């Protein structure tokens, strides 16, 4: 079993009481500025950022840093895959305590529960490849139709069966699917198998844009079951990508020049 912080079962359980946001560093200038407001080293945005914030996003509740280890203790170097159980337990317990302090509005919250969208299809293919998960595109040129489709899919996506099992992106133009093989519909829910390197994808299943939540649940369960995750190890993946000449160019330049030794040193201070 993987023992890293964000896969720990107590942390995952506590996360249901939070709004969890994961950004792609160096992909959006405005988001880069948000991240720089949470953590930098030498005033530069780092590759990885971690924080727990108040609901308005303005106040740090725990110490921010490059990873949860900065707040809860643990490994910053080679042992990063084997975080101490006590540190992960501390993170889960702290999150439960924070959830008690910020219980949320419950049923008083107004408005529909939105789908947790990724920014665009290009990034979504890469992120889902990295997560080894399927991608579901909500595709309709008409904004009102997309909204109606989102309402149905949201009910399914946040249900116990499906929460955290797929990721979502909105698309309004067929041209957005130029890297996806097998798209035949002009509107619909398109379940996509991302390629190993997330530069392309292929259709697993197309589901009618008119499908209601009950039908979506059945169809989505079938489609997600057909997803085939990449089985290469981290190092095998990187080596295969180098050999195959697969490259990703971030939209903004990387500014992370810190060394592991420096990061460990800072963490211990």
């Amino acid at each position: 079993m993987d023992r890293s912080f964000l896969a720990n079962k107590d942390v995952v359980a506590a996360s249901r009481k939070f709004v969890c946001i994961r950004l792609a560093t160096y992909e959006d200038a405005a988001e880069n500025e948000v991240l720089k407001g949470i953590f930098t080293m030498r005033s530069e945005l780092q590759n990885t950022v971690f924080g727990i914030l108040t609901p308005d996003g303005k106040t740090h509740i725990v110490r921010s840093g490059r990873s949860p280890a900065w707040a809860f203790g643990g490994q910053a170097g080679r042992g990063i895959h084997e975080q101490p159980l006590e540190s992960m337990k501390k993170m889960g317990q702290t999150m439960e305590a924070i959830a008690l302090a910020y219980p949320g509005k419950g049923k008083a919250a107004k408005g529909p529960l939105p789908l947790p969208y990724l920014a665009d299809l290009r990034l979504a293919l890469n992120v889902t490849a990295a997560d080894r998960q399927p991608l579901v595109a909500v595709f309709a040129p008409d904004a009102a139709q997309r909204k109606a489709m989102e309402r149905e899919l949201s009910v399914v996506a946040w249900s116990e069966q499906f929460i955290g099992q797929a990721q979502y992106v909105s698309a309004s133009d067929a041209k957005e699917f130029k890297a996806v093989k097998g798209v035949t519909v002009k509107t619909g829910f398109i379940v996509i198998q991302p390629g190993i390197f997330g530069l392309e994808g292929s259709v697993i299943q197309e589901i009618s844009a008119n499908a209601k939540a009950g039908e979506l649940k059945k169809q989505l369960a079938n489609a997600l079951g057909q997803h085939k995750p990449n089985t290469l190890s981290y190092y095998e993946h990187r080596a295969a990508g180098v050999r195959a000449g697969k490259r990703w160019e971030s939209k903004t330049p990387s500014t992370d020049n810190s060394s592991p030794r420096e990061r460990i040193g800072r963490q211990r201070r």
Partner: protein
Amino acid sequence: MMMVRSTLLAGAFLAATFISNAQAEVLKGAVKTENIAWYGTWKGGLAEAQRTGRPILLVSGAPQCHNVPGVW
């Protein structure tokens, strides 16, 4: 070499978090793992935190290693 290790370790932090096999269940023949459900944009996530009053768990990482995509 330091840069190589730096990038590898930064990626490893995120990679490790999404390839868990905790709490396995069956989902139509596939193994289901319990995962955190992430909002993929700051705008979308912040709006939801403000709507619901729930606190925010935030992480970020570059989805590439040595410019090789498909890995955190």
